[in-house]
Structures are given as C-alpha cells and as structure tokens.
C-alpha cells in the first residue's frame, strides 16, 4: 500500500503545487519539498522495517497489485526488493536536493516547474517499482514531456534545439520499445493463450532466438538512448549545456538510474540468451564510449558539456558491468550507478553555483576562483576527484568491481577500460585547473558557499565518502534482491 502512496503523494503534490504559485511561489516550493521529503521518509521507514534485520528474503519486500485494465491483462503492480529500494532511495534523495537547489535558481513559472519536477520523479519511481510492463512503459513515457518542458522553458540560449533533440531521441527509441513490448505480449499470448503484461509471467515466454533478439533490441534501443551509451549519446551534452543545474541533475543522474535499472531488471532476465549473444558488441561499445567521452570531456569548453561527457564515460562503465556477465561486475555497475548519480550530480550543482556567481559556463572565462571562493573550489575538487576514480570515494568501488569482474572474462577489455580511468584524470584535472587555479584575471570578488549550498554539497560529499569507505550496507541490501533478479545476483 505504501508503494501506491509514494506515487500518489508526488502526483498530488505536483497538481497542488502548480496553482499555488499564483498565491506565493514559496507555497509551491514548500509543497514540492514536502512531497519529496515525505516520500523519502516513507521509503526510509520501509528500509528500516524490512531490510534492517539482514534477512535474505526471497520474494518482494513490498508488493501492490491492483487490476487496471483486466481485459488486456494490465495490472497496477508494484514491487520492491533490495535493488529497487536502493535506487528509489537514491532518486528521492536527489529529488530533495533538486527541489532545494531550485529554491533560488528558478524564479519564473515556479508552479509549473515544480509540477513537472514532481511528475518526472513520479515517472522514475514508477519505472523503478513497476512489475507490469505496460505500467513500466507508461511510467517511462511519463518522464518525457515534463523533461521536455524543463529544458525548453528554464534552459539557456539554445534550449529549444536541445529540448527537441532530447525529445526526438527518447521518443523514437521509446516507440521501438513499445513495438517490442507488444511483440512480446502477443508472442506470450500465442504460446500460452493468456494476454498479460505481468513481469513474472513474461519471464518464461518461449521465443525463437531470432524473435528474442529483435524484441530485446527494441527494449535495448530505449534503454541505450536514455542511459545514454555511445553512439546514442549526443543528445545529452546538448541538453546539459542548455538546461539549468537542477535539471541536469535529474537528466544525467536520475534518468540514467532508471535506464540502468531497466537493463538489470528487465533486459537481463527477460532475454538472457539474446543478451549473451549481443554482449560482445555492447562491451566494445562501452569501452569505446569510456575512452571517447573522456577525450571529448577533455576538449570541452562549456562546463556543463564537460560534465555531461564525464557522465557518459561513467555510464560506459555501468554498461560494461551490466554486459560483462559477471557477478562482481554487475554489483559494481549498481554501485557505479549510485556513485555516479551523486558525484556527477554534485558536479552539475557546482557548475551551477559557479554560473550563478560569474554568469558564464565557459571554462575559459572563469579561472582563478580559488582566490575568492576557496570553499566552493575545495568542494569541487573533491567531486572532480570522485569522477577520476580516487579510492576512498564511491566511484572507485564501483569501477574497481566492474573492472575486476570484467577481467575474469575479458582480460584485454578490462585492461583497455582501466586506461579509461587514467583518461578521466585528464578532464578532471583540466576542470580543476581551468576553473579554480591560475591567476585571478578577472579580479573576481565573489561570495563563497551560501549555507544552503554548503549543506547540500556537504551531504553529498559525506555520502560519497561513506560509499567509498564502507559500501557494505549497499551490497547487503542488494543481496536481498528478489529471486527474479538476474541469475548473476546469486
């Protein structure tokens, strides 16, 4: 029942927050903050109740199953296990961060902004919780239009171009998934005589290898674009360079969470053989993506674009972990999803803070900030170090597990991908050098971190450090993923 409340609170909060902004923007913001915080508290309560005792449960820890459209076999079916719990927590945590960050940054159409924001979070939660593939698709598409608005209304100069590009990429790939989903639905009907979108039922669908491959590719298209992976990534840098910092946090961090989750939850268990067949290609693409994006990140002059390419590089590691076919690597992939969302998200926030002070995203026109905003600079340094995979911070654990797992199966791939970690050093250090070090040419006299910024970034830093030094709780929760998780969990 609580699972239903999670979504209901977000959607209701969004609907209420929209008109309230007419009375006072503060009302709208407070409602949004209340909604996401309430959700976070609810999930924390669930986590403490069901996951605290260290039992290795076999089923879903929480389940909710209502008939929605029985004629078509569509259910309103939610389930929560260790994997989804972790990512739901992460999503809501970053959603709170996004609302708080938007507090000052968003001044126009405040109500509509929060409506869209909450709807996106609801969509992501729907993806993370759905056990009915129609409901899953519905949630997947629910994110799309609000995100389009977030980019095209609160973005920078070329926001319309960026928003349309985002929309076309995700919409087209989403359509491919819809076709694949329907094909799976009818294939299941043909072999069993039952119309159903139930995850549990579709798991055992008999498919010819060709059919499985084509259907799998349809799903993969949507997931690969949204993650995004090389060579379907070009919408992300464009979108990130135009959207606001909080939007980027959601766009790059949270959408990637939902796409990576969908691969682990749906792609691997539904089509194990087809995934196995295609995995060499995906592994090569992942490694190319890691190196390619590192070089491109190194060359960017727009801060947000730089971070976007850094994000693509980390997601290349996630892809590698998912398709390496190894338990260590897969767990590393989950760890990287979490750590990436925090460290890259934080870098976007840092870039937003810089932009707010110097009114530019161009790395060349910043420079020498350490003189005037040492705290902001120090914080940025920490997140840049997380991005380059410094041990002791969360990203390292994930990438190390991915690489050590990949090594068991593909030695050369692991070796080349390890060079990707080295390449990450190039852009991370360039970012630090160009933005913060060097002489203070502009004679900036800027205010250092405001209490709210310090609080947010400080919390994110503590979480990264915790993930880097004591990640065991994450792996334990993950170990409690349900039986239906990919065979590699066990």
């Amino acid at each position, binding site marked *: 029942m609580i699972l239903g409340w999670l979504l209901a609170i977000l959607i209701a909060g969004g609907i209420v927050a929209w008109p309230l902004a007419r009375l006072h923007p503060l009302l709208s913001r407070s409602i949004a903050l209340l909604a996401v915080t309430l959700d976070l508290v609810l999930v924390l309560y669930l986590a403490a109740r069901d996951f605290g005792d260290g039992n290795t449960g076999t089923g879903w820890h929480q389940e909710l199953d209502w008939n929605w459209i029985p004629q078509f076999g569509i259910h309103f079916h939610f389930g929560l296990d260790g994997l989804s719990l972790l990512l739901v927590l992460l999503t809501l945590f970053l959603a709170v961060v996004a609302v708080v960050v938007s507090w000052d940054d968003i001044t126009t159409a405040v109500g509509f902004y929060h409506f869209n924001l909450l709807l996106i979070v609801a969509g992501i939660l729907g993806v993370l919780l759905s056990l009915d593939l129609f409901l899953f698709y519905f949630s997947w598409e629910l994110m799309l239009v609000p995100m389009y608005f977030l980019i095209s209304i609160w973005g920078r100069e070329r926001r319309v171009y960026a928003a349309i590009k985002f929309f076309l990429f995700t919409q087209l790939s989403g359509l491919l998934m819809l076709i694949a989903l329907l094909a799976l639905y009818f294939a299941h009907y043909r072999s069993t005589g039952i119309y159903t979108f139930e995850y549990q039922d579709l798991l055992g669908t008999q498919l010819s290898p060709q059919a499985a491959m084509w259907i799998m590719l349809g799903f993969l298209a949507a997931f690969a674009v949204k993650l995004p992976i090389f060579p379907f990534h070009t919408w992300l840098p464009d979108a990130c360079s135009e959207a606001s910092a909080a939007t980027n946090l959601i766009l790059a961090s949270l959408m990637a969470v939902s796409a990576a989750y969908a691969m682990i939850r749906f792609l691997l268990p539904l089509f194990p053989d087809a995934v196995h067949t295609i995995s060499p290609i995906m592994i090569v693409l992942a490694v190319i993506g890691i190196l390619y994006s590192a070089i491109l990140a190194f060359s960017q002059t727009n801060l947000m674009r730089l971070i976007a390419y850094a994000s693509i590089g980390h997601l290349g590691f996630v892809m590698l972990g998912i398709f390496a076919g190894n338990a260590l690597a897969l767990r590393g992939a989950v760890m990287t999803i979490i750590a990436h969302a925090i460290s890259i998200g934080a870098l976007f926030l840092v870039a937003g803070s810089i932009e707010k002070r110097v009114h530019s995203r161009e790395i060349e026109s910043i420079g020498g900030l350490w003189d005037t905003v040492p705290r902001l600079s120090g914080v940025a340094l920490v997140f840049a170090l997380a991005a380059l995979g410094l041990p002791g911070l969360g990203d390292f654990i994930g990438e190390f597990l991915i690489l050590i797992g990949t090594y068991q199966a593909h030695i050369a791939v692991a070796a080349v991908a*390890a060079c990707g970690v080295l390449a990450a050093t190039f852009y991370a250090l360039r970012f630090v050098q160009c933005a913060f070090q060097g002489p203070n040419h502009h004679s900036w006299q800027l205010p250092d971190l405001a209490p709210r910024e310090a609080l947010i970034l400080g919390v994110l830093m503590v979480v990264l450090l915790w993930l880097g030094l004591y990640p065991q709780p994450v792996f334990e929760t993950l170990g409690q993923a349900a039986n239906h998780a990919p065979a590699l969990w066990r």
Partner: protein
Amino acid sequence: MLRLLWLVPAIPLVSALALAVLRLSQKAVAWLGTCSIAASSLISLLVSISFVNAPPVSGAYTQVLWRWFDVNGLRPEIALYLDPLSLIMMVVVAFVSFLIHLYSTEFMSGDDGFGRFFAYMNLFVGCMLTLILADNLLLLYLGWEGVGLCSYLLIGFWYRDPANGRAGRKAFIVTRAGDTAMVIGLFLLFHELGTLNIQDLMHRAALQWSIGSTGALAAAFLLLGGAVGKSAQLPLQTWLPDAMAGPTPVSALIHAATMVTAGVYLIARMHVIYSLAPQAQFAVAVIGAATLLMAGFSALTQHDLKRVLAYSTISQIGYMFLALGVGAWPAAIFHFMTHAFFKALLFLGAGIVIESLDGEHDIFRMGGLRKELPVAFWTFLIAGCSLAGLPLITAGAFSKDWIIWGAYSAANGSAGLWVVALGGVFLTALYTFRMIFLVFFGQKKSQVTRMPGPAMVVPCIILAFLSIAGGYVKTLFSNYLGTVLHWDSTVTHGVSFGENTSEAITSLVFLLGASLAYMLFLRRRQWAASMVSRPMGNLLHRFWLSDWGMDWLYDRIFVRPVVWMARIGKGDLVDVFYAGIGRLNEIAWRGMSRTQSGKLRWYAAAIAAGAIVLIGVVIFS
C-alpha cells in the same frame, strides 16, 4: 600498546580533515598540524617498542578495523599489518614527517595558504602511513593514490602560476599511468590467487606458481609499472624534476624522503612474487642500474639547486631498485632509511639557502655562503657527504656499500651491475661536491637577506645527526629484516673478492669523484667551462640537461596526439551523423513545400500525372 596502531594513520587523517574544514589562525594551524604528526610518530615509536620487546607469535601483528566490503569472494578489510618491514618504514616516515612539519611552520609562515598547506601535508602523512601499514593491496592502493593526490596538490600548491599546476598534473598523470598497470596487476592477482590480502597472496603464490611461471611474471611486471611510476624510475621518471615547483618542504618530504620510495616498499612487500619471477626481478635491477646512471649524468648538468637534488633522488632510488633486483632486500630498505635522512636534510638546507637569497635557485648565482649560513653549510655538508658516501663515517656510505656489495655478491648480482653501481658512486660524488662547492665556496654573488629561525634549524641538526648515526644500525637491518625478507647475509654467490675489498674500491671511487669536483668546480672552473663549450661536450650537456630528451619524446608520442584528438573531436563526430539526418529532413521539407505553391494548374497537372502513372502501373504490371 599494539592496539594503538590504528591511531598512527588516523590522527593525521583526522587533523587533515579538521584543518580543511575549520577556520583557524595561523598559530593554531601550526600547532594542530605539527602536533598531530608528533603524536602520530610518538605512538608509532611506542607501538614499535612494544612490538620489538614482545613480538607476536606469528612475527606480525594484524589489526582489523572494519570489513571494507564483501562481494562474491572479494572481501578486503580495512586492516593494518605490522611486521619488521612496515615497522621500520612507519617509524622513519612518521619521524621525518614530524621534522619537516616543524620546519614548515616557519618556512611557510605568512603564506596565505598556510592552513591549506598543513591540511594537504597531514593528509599526505595519513595516506603514506596507510600505504605502509595496509594489510591488503586494495587498501595499499588507496594510500598509494592518496599520496599521489597530495603530491599533485602540493606541487601545484602555489596555484596562481599555471606552470605549477602543469607540473602537478604531469606528476599525477605520469604516476597514474604506472598505477594503471598496477591496478591491472591487482585484477590479475585476484583472478589467479583469489585474494588481495598480501600475506595470503605471498602464501598462495608460493604454492601455486612455479619459478618463472607466466602468472608470476605478469603480476611482477604489472606491479613494477606502478613502482616505476611512483618511484620515478625509467621510463616514468620525467615527472620528478618538474615536481620541484612545489614548496621546498614538500620536495623534502614527498619527493625525496617518503612517497617516491613507495615503489621500493611495494616491491619489497611483494618480494615473494619477484622471487618467483626472476626475469622481472632482473628487470628491476636493470631499471635501477640504468636509472642511477642516467639521472646521475643529468644531475651533473642542472643549474637549479632543487633539480640537482631531484635527479639525485632518482639516482638514489635507482640504487634501491638495484638492491631489490639483485635480491639484497634489506639493503634497499636500509638505503631508504639513510636516504630519507640525508636527502630530506639536503632539501631543507636548500630551502634555507633559497629562502635566504630571496628565491634564487641557480647554483651559479650562489657562492661563498659558508660563512653567512654556517648551520646550513655544516648540515648540508654532512648530508652531502652521506649522499656521496664518505666512507666509514656517514650513514649513506654504509647503506650504499651494502648495495654495491650486493650488486656483486647477491643471488642475482653480477660484475657488470657492480661496475655500474661504482660508476654511480663516481657521479654522485662529482655532482654532490659540484653543488657544495658552487653554493658554499668561492666568491659571494648574492646578498643573504633572511636568516633561518630555530624551527628551521633544529630539524636540520637532528637530521644531520641521523645522517651520520643512521649507519650504525646496519646489523639491526640485516638480522631483523632478514627474517621477513628471507635474506641471509652470509650467503654469497660466485665472488672472487670479499666485501672489504669492494668497500675499499668504493671509497677510492668516491675520492676520485670528490677530487675531480674539487678541480673542476673550485680550483679550475675554466676546465669545466671549456668542456661544455666544445661541440661534443655542449651536445652531451644539453642532452643530459633535458633528461636525455625523454620529455621531448613523450610530448610527441603521448601528449600531442591526445591534444590533437581532443581538438578535432571537440564537436563530437558522432553528432555529424545525426545532424546529417536533420539536414536531410530539412531538404526534404524544402522540396515538398515547394510543391505547395497555391497554383491550381500545377495541382491539376500533378493529379493528372499521378493518375497516368498509376494507370500505367496497373496496365503494364
């Protein structure tokens, strides 16, 4: 007492955090930053005393703090491991760090980054101690990357000058290139042996791998990659001379006494693997021998006082690698210790000299400082003699003699390596006394503007004492470390003369080098000048001055291609494809919208033409 071990790395780490977060006055920073290291070295001393008095039954003490993570058989712990090897490293590092921190309180006073400096330095000490005490390779790697980070931060400490930032990035990236090999070595070890715990690895390697097996070879070479990066050995030595951009205490602590010897420690720690991979171990010896000669030649030509010392460091670590490579493990660690004392002292002395001359680095613009800076002169002289290996008295002579003897007599030793090591002694004496003569003797060329205070002088005197006294604990090393590192001083391999003969020859070579320096750089300066002015001499001089052209080479084969790729790839070539699709759509749209001209006769004609085509298709198909 042993249970206090965790405090040794923890105190500097916590104080680093405190220094980074809190806003303190300069005085408070100095107290906190120095006292934390003092506390850490005091505890390390207490722990050591109790370890030596009542050694654990197994010969080592392990302290598990918490389990890092536990995933499918990979279960590293945050755990510390104390045995004679890590004990000696820990005590030396903690103590030298304390002295250099004390020195820094005065050296850095007035700098607007005072708090930042001590935060980085404390973080460094914490990471270095973690590296030394780590009981598994993953934790060691954490410390390893941590010290690399601090090195980067401290080289670029004066960040307003972009050149310093460049030097810092170069150091970080070059060492990380080595670390990439090392981390792949970690994957290999885990894959083959199923653990990352160092003692378990040694144990299993000995059981599973035969001598010269592929696994052992690959692992040894990959770890060697990390070691040559961190210890600035061939072919990754290019970062260390540039690292001198950092404040002088940083050069003393990180780039002379402690961090750069981490590679030596790693190989000594993993010595079982190297014993199983004779070719890799021989490579260590060859790298050491080649590096000590090359860096010695480069040191001869430098003008910058700190760069002379940097090349000297590279060269001395080459000796340590040579010792490791021939299998004289304790000799390498012994030389690490004496080198930590005298090289730290040389840098601290150089700091005093440079500071007193308002930041003058060029040794050709110094001179005659013997009278003006007596303490600096005497301590520098003692350290220089120790570096060059003044026989019978100085610590450096004891440790170097041992290595030279090992190069000949140890398991993998040979006459060739012995000769190279002797050549190194000659070069060392030559460049050391060149430096001493040019800086402290001859004519006065610059005015002394600042005298060192007690916080700078006291550490120098203590280190000068250690640069002499440190040599008399050799037996402790050979007996105590011998058990851990499986080394027996009485065993020699195919020698035709004894240790005393080798030492006598070494002394002779030292005298030769020192007197040549005396001739060239004190009595007959014009000789040196005329050698350089000849075409051949000039060419060699330039070649050695530029570190054998390796920077130039790396710039062309690594740096430029990456920068070039980045420049042409900036706009994301993949996007050209998508933009092309967009263009195509636009063209199609233009073409189609042309037909919407609003002219009725065009529409009628189009309808008629379409109808004819359709009818034609129906009839003729």
